């Protein structure tokens, strides 16, 4: 795939005085006593489209440009403390003013700080990096994008049983420049696309309705994700299949609540990985930084190396390097180069996701590069890497996994999700649920949710599929932090099989 090779510094940020801003911010911070200072200049362009029954409901194009200065200051008798200031004026004067403001913030808040802020060492980096995409979606005329979504919606609306068709698209081009007092200077451009179509069936007399949407995941790709080719999504196939699948679901029997073996497709399992492994292996949660908001984790630091997180077939990696991954970068927002590492190996917890401060605090050596801020006006936090369940070399196909189930359910596509604040108790639904009897699919079910405790669930995984079943899923909207930030993240996984999982009937759950 051809990758645009222009320099983000000149092609995307060429109208901004990067050198002057960097010099002004860092020199002012140094003058005011900062022991660390970094400056970020960001330009994020986005386009959001929503269509209902082929008609545009929402069309918005935005550009967020800003400048942030972050410092670590040792103020008087107090511990070294963070200070952060951000604005939308990208000029040398503004940079110097923000550096002063960041130092002021550190001074005001230092008396409330009882732990020194120290950062793990990182080599100095200088360079540019561009994510793997072919066509900038912000360069494609909005008319063409609306036209494609309307055409796909029209195909759904012409199918039997489809009353409504909704379509949406979000395209993002994110450009970041980073510089710090140590001498790192990096610039990177990331492009990502998300699109989905949903078909709805309605029974007028009873008022009952069912919906089903496409399984296409968001991806670190450009507009080519919508137009096909070279590993991109086959929209034609999925749009052709969706109405029939929806009709089958609408007339499917309601599930009998109970305990079932589950074979879970990557289109559903990525979200379970995200919630029960991705968030649970964030070190800031283990250290309590998110106790008031996103929560903590059962995978506490004392269990590193000894927690039997799952069965021996469980191998989970963290990375910021996977091609087309939504969390893939050249460098993180601490100036740390992208890496790959193990989180769970042979079922045992062996790693966390880190930023430079936590890596130093816990004596873990170098950060593995998980600092990220979703906008120039937000301070970087430890955010999720691409967290992926690895397939078994030479492992089974999805059909072979299903063949090993006498009485179970095959789960396809994500839908509702919820998990507790220590990442124990979760509940998920999906797009499609197929009854498995004697190793074969036996039609769809509806009203299904599965519910489990994280450690029980992953220890109940008795087989993972081979590389031929592996799919990179993910989300644009992982939430964390106060002020709240959203981060894009991918999760790859094969199809996997779980024994004896609790299944609820969602209609029965709501009845009294």
């Amino acid at each position, binding site marked *: 795939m051809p990758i645009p090779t222009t320099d983000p510094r000149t092609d995307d940020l060429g109208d901004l005085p990067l050198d002057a801003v960097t010099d002004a911010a860092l020199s002012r911070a140094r003058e005011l006593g900062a022991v660390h200072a970094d400056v970020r200049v960001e330009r994020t362009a986005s386009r959001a489209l929503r269509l*209902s029954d082929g008609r545009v409901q929402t069309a918005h194009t935005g550009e967020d*440009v800003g400048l942030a200065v972050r410092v670590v200051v040792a103020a008087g008798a107090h511990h070294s403390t963070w200070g952060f200031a951000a604005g939308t004026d990208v000029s040398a004067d503004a940079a110097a003013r923000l550096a002063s403001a960041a130092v002021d*913030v550190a001074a005001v808040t230092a008396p409330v700080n009882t732990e020194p802020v120290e950062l793990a060492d990182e080599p100095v980096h200088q360079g540019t990096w561009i994510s793997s995409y072919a066509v900038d979606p912000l360069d494609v005329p909005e*008319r063409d994008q609306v036209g494609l979504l309307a055409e796909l919606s029209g195909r759904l609306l012409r199918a039997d049983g489809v009353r409504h068709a909704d379509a949406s698209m979000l395209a993002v081009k994110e450009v970041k420049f980073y510089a710090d007092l140590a001498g790192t200077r990096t610039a990177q451009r990331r492009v990502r696309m998300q699109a989905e179509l949903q078909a709805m069936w309605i029974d007028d007399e009873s008022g009952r309705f069912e919906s089903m949407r496409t399984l296409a995941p968001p991806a670190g790709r450009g507009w080519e994700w919508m137009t096909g080719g070279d590993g991109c999504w086959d929209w034609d196939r999925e749009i052709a299949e969706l109405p029939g699948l929806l009709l089958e679901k609408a007339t499917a029997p309601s599930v009998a609540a109970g305990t079932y073996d589950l074979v879970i497709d990557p289109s559903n399992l990525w979200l379970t990985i995200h919630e029960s492994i991705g968030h649970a292996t964030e070190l800031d949660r283990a250290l309590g930084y998110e106790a008031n908001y996103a929560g903590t984790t059962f995978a506490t630091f004392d269990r590193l190396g000894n927690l039997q997180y799952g069965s021996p077939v469980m191998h989970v990696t963290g990375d910021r390097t996977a091609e087309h991954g939504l969390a893939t970068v050249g460098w993180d927002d601490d100036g740390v180069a992208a890496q790959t590492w193990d989180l769970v190996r042979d079922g045992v917890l062996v790693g966390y996701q880190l930023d430079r401060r936590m890596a130093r605090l816990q004596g873990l050596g170098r950060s593995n590069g998980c600092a990220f801020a979703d906008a120039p006006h937000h301070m970087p936090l430890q955010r999720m890497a691409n967290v992926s369940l690895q397939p078994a070399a030479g492992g089974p196909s999805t059909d072979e996994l299903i063949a090993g189930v006498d009485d179970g359910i095959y789960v396809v596509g994500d839908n509702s999700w*919820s998990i507790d604040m220590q990442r124990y108790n979760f509940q998920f639904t999906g797009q499609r649920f197929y009854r498995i009897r004697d190793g074969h699919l036996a039609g769809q079910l509806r*009203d299904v949710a599965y519910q489990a405790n994280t450690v029980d669930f992953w220890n109940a995984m008795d087989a993972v599929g081979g590389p031929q079943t592996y799919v990179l899923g993910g989300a644009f909207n992982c939430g964390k932090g106060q002020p709240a930030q959203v981060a894009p993240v991918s999760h790859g996984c094969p199809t996997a099989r779980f024994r004896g999982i609790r299944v609820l009937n969602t209609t029965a759950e709501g009845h*009294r």
Partner: protein
Amino acid sequence: MTPQEVAERALALSRTDGCIVLVDDSTSANLRWAGNTLTTNGVTEGRTLTVLAFDGARLGAVSRTRVTADAIEATVRAAEDAAAESEPEDDAAPLITPAESVSASWEEPAERTSIGVFERFAPALRDAFGAAGAAGHSLYGYAEHELTTTYLASSTGLRLRHPQPHGRLELTARTPNGDRSSWTGQGTRDFRDVDIAAHARVLAQRLDWSRRRLELPAGRYETLLPPSAVGDLMVYAYWSMTALDAVEGRTAFRKPGGGTRIGERLAELPLRLYSDPEMSGLQAAPFIAAGASSRRVSAFDNGLPLRSTDWIRDGELTALVQTRHSAGITGQPVTAQVGNLGLEAAGSQASLDEMVATTQRGLLLTCLWYVRMVDPQTLLVTGLTRDGVFLVEGGEVAGAVTNFRFNESPLDVLARATEAGRAEPTLPREFGDYFTRTRMAPLRVPDFNMSSVSPAS
């Protein structure tokens, strides 16, 4: 340039039939802490320019945050290009004129906040850290204050301004091993009404209640939902009360056979769910300022005055969120969304403590978490209890029990509630990021569905 100058410049550059310009000037300050120490902080300032270009029934919407003189014209032209490329909008309508709108203080400058808003709060927080440490527990939390002044100018002559303060405090207390925790929160306009010592006393009382641990299995329990928990459930219901979705049969507010459930009795109690831009202490924008259209709001309605609206009155559904477009379809009045929400019951004066005192056996919750839709047909949502679930026996708190996962519909909660207490301003724990201005009554639900036990603490 002042925000007014930016807006006037953009309008002067406009070449389309109609144009609406929104300028949002924002400043914010925040503090975050964990384990009795500060973790992050910051101050921000920013300006967002949004240009809505109307070319007949066509609309183009473009926003930018770096608002230089060159960027103003670029934004106007980009919006005009987007309008020229678009198809006519279903919700197209004449733009609002000054005669239809409210008067506002257009000439006033943007209001600003700074780190100084925490001048009295920060020392009090430091004292609270000391007290918590001495008592053997730690504090975690977040304080933020934002001031956004919105300027709306239109080619029809509208010149509207609205300053919106937004503040909140969240405070969690945890014991060193995490086996006991509690939470309080508060929305605020300026932090002058924040008494962190009072919050700390509430936390200490609840941590003390948690010293006695009791075991309870999953099941249906009489449950006292405090205002924060009610707020999260009602906010979710409010977000689902979109008239266009209901009339198309897509939500729990549809009527089998067609139409909406407006006019249907949803609750036995005389409950009132309402919004009011003038709600005391929880004031919200008095006019629509929308940067884009959706099924819930129309960009063509920008500048439309917002009024007090009862969504549910005396237990009966009386309105859904309408645009002028959807009102034309449903035949209902235009009842646009407002940025606050209240739930109250006529004549209810019991405090939550008084409701506890009249409970023979039931659960008292602290707040809800991770609330997500399970079934839109019934508005069934799932979620967790968080930071303190207490068993009440004989009118007193007997001890703390485990957390639970629940599966419930906010509509069923309203239908089954047997008592509503005195409404008070509250911060919804789950949706406080998006919706801080709520005033909610505590509710007693005789059979709340605790679907499974959560070992989280």
